[in-house]
């Protein structure tokens, strides 16, 4: 039956589009398959650069991390994936937890990446950093009012906050860290207070929150820094104006700013693990790092790499010391606390 199915459809497909690309099950040596949750055009340049330097061909499959996860699970041992790239440590932890990543050791990686940004056993490594910070309307609230995460719970901000949905991984990871910092009870109370300060129901993405502040719908919100940087460096005058109308606050007191990563790990069933490791190491090289963050406006992981446009203007900040592995471990708790607080 299966042969027949294949024959019927391949026949139809090939007849319709003779010679279009098809994949064979046996990969030629010197190819790696990248499963990436990113959708940046600059990533293609990055893959090309790697191929140019090593001769290893990169094939990629881009989809949301959830879909990548399901796809890999369904593929099981025969998964062609060599490497997984995902934004957010919580997501990488989920892959690790499901046994989809393998530990790898590399002196190059250990030297390039600070210890807190890599999984202790080498299941995944952070490659770029993103800060979840507070954006606010300087005309309506002062920097002190929003200078740290805890401040958002203040009654003075009633009716002033815009947030996106709590099921979003960025919010989940932040809450996971807050649980680690403050304990479950205090984090839960914080969530409830924040919800009572909402100016409207959670809606849209991080960009939407900046837009809402610029339009005067609310005065403060939580976002990842690069969304604002992209606005500030946009070709569109309107979008630059929106960034100009708002200000950023990097929490310094407490444990500093919540930092998350874009990271990658080698797939548990990688057909070509050596090449995959070489690719990981390439991503920590100067070329790899620059291409990795050029379009996303994340912070490079490695010092001394040229910052993408718009990042120089941001202040230095204190990175949180909480281990990234906690972000995944506390995720379920985080969602429960949000649900209890009524943060949709």
């Amino acid at each position, binding site marked *: *039956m*299966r042969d027949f*199915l*294949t024959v*019927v*459809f*391949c026949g*139809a*497909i090939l007849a*319709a*589009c003779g010679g*279009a*690309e*098809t*994949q*064979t*099950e046996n990969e030629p040596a010197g190819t790696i*398959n990248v499963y990436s949750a990113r*959708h940046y*055009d600059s990533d*293609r340049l990055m893959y090309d650069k790697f191929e140019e330097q090593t001769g290893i061909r990169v*094939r*990629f*499959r*881009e*989809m*949301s991390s*959830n*879909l990548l*996860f*399901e*796809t890999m*699970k*369904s*593929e*099981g041992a*025969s*998964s*062609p994936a060599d490497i997984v790239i995902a934004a957010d440590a919580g997501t990488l932890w989920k892959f690790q937890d499901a046994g989809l990543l393998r530990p790898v050791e590399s002196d190059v990686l250990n030297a390039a990446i600070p210890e807190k940004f890599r999984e202790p056993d080498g299941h995944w490594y952070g490659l770029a950093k993103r800060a979840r910070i507070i954006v606010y309307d300087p005309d309506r609230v002062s920097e002190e009012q929003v200078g740290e995460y805890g401040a958002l719970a203040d009654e003075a901000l009633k*009716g002033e906050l815009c947030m996106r*949905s709590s099921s979003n991984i960025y919010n989940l990871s932040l809450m996971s860290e807050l649980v680690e910092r403050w304990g479950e009870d205090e984090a839960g109370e914080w969530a409830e207070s924040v919800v009572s300060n909402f*100016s409207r129901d959670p*809606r*849209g*993405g991080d*960009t*939407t929150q900046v*837009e*809402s502040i*610029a*339009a*005067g*719908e*609310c005065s403060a919100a939580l976002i990842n820094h690069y969304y604002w940087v*992209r606005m500030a460096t946009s*070709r*569109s005058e*309107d979008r630059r104006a*929106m960034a100009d109308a708002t200000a950023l606050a990097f929490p310094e007191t407490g444990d500093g700013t919540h930092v998350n990563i874009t990271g990658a790990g080698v797939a548990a069933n990688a057909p070509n693990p050596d090449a995959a490791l070489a690719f990981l190491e390439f991503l920590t090289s100067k070329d790899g790092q620059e291409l990795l963050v050029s*379009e996303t406006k994340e912070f490079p992981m490695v010092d001394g790499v040229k910052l993408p446009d718009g990042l120089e203007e941001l202040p230095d900040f204190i990175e949180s010391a909480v281990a990234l592995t906690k972000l995944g471990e506390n995720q379920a708790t985080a969602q429960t606390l949000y649900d209890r607080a009524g943060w949709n």
Partner: protein
Amino acid sequence: MTAQAGTDNFEEKPFQGVPRLLKEIVRPGNALIALAIFLVGLPLFSTVLIGIFAGGGETWNHIIDTFFWTYLTGSLVVLSGVALLILITAVPAAWIVTVYDFPGRQAFSWLLILPLAAPGYVLAYSYADLLGVVGPIQTAIRDATGLAARDYWFPDIRSRWGCAFVLAAALYPYVYLTARAAFTSQSVCTLEAAQALGAAPWRRFTQVALPGARPAIVAGLALALMEAAADYGAADFLGVQTLTVGVFRAWSSFSDPAAGARLALVLVALALTLLWIERRRRGDAGTQASSIRWRTIQRKKLGGWLSLLAVVFCSLIFIWGFAAPFVRLIWLAIEARSSTPPLIKPLLNSIFLAGAGAAAAFIIALIFAIGARSKSRVAQVAKWIAAGGYATPGAVLALGGVYALNLLPFTLTGLAALTVLVLVYVSRFTAAGTGPLEAALGRAPASLNAAARSLGATPIQRVWRVDLPIILPGAAAAGLILFVETLKELPATLMLRPFNLDTLAVRAYAYASDERLETAALPSLVIVLCGLLPVILLSWRLSTGRAGGGVE
């Protein structure tokens, strides 16, 4: 019932106008039809079976406890909104362009079909920007009044009603087309009779035209609602929790496709109900389709402010369904010129995938269309299966495809994924091709075949010299429809596409969900442009009525 009885003809019945050769290919196997049925039905049936037998468990209970009512009410509110909006726009518009004459009538008559080219998710991207808090409309309100966004109320596009607003804009042409056809075919005599009996225009509309066209309108509405229920892209982008979004999430977030399949059962039931309504209504509508068409309606010329009103009404609908979102996309694409995404490859991939999907669906649709002429029971089953697939959301079928693959020892990679994806396209879109193909085959009545035979044409000559040239235009239209439908398809492509195979739809979706709407604009525009070509072609054919229709 034997094949023999199915193909026999009584004297006074028209002999079958099927190319004999093709029919002879089909007959040795109704088996061929049965195989096609199997392929088309596979994704749907595996979803249903999985849903029934494996869909329980913890995730399902969790979904029932937490999200089910949200999903269900979400879907119901969106569907009701879509139905309401379509009825108050498409039906009057169809009536106005059919019986009245006013400046621009001819243009509106086909301009109003154009939204068919744009998938719902593209409209959602455009409208989220247009009506968003920093969009041009709200900005203008703030500039004009000096208020801040918190000081005034503005409808939230990222809501259930917003989603209905967007989907209705994309789907009203289904009803507009069926209503217009019904008005055109029935109105000539009955309306003149009503006029002679002294009925005022409003009464002619409500008491004569509307009841007469109701079956067609309901059928069109059922089709539109099937599409609305199947939508994933728009609802997901606007953050609206619907059943289809839930099916997708059960798989992608809860890692429990079986729970998704059980959720999908609700959708399948909903879709089949709509399908049943559509079929029944179409049967009713069929009784009046026989009226003679070559009497064109004497359109009443509207004067003064009535004419202005008609122009404004039609313009508003056109702006809503097409002009506003389309222009905004162009604006966004121009604004984003610095980050123009590379589109050649996704475009080629789209064409490749849509071509493969359309080709496969076309073949199956052709088998069904030819088989349908034999009126055998197998062919009737085929029709229903195809319609069932058409009514079922792509996400649900993709889920079934994944399961079918797992039953066979396959993984979701490479050729196997491509095969399943094409299978899902076939399952989803075959029905969209059978209708036009049946119509095309109907253009070659049996007597033509007999005439060709009596003139000494061999079977191959008959196919080559008679059947093909006659059915080709219709078949090309069917192929084009299939191609565009496949090109616009999002959820199944998202779930099943193989490596390095990003389509335009997938890229647009990825950019949009990355909050880079301005980058999503260009691939979205290209999708719309790809769809425009066949839609304009079709609408031109429909609007010019009998053009080229020699054998009627």
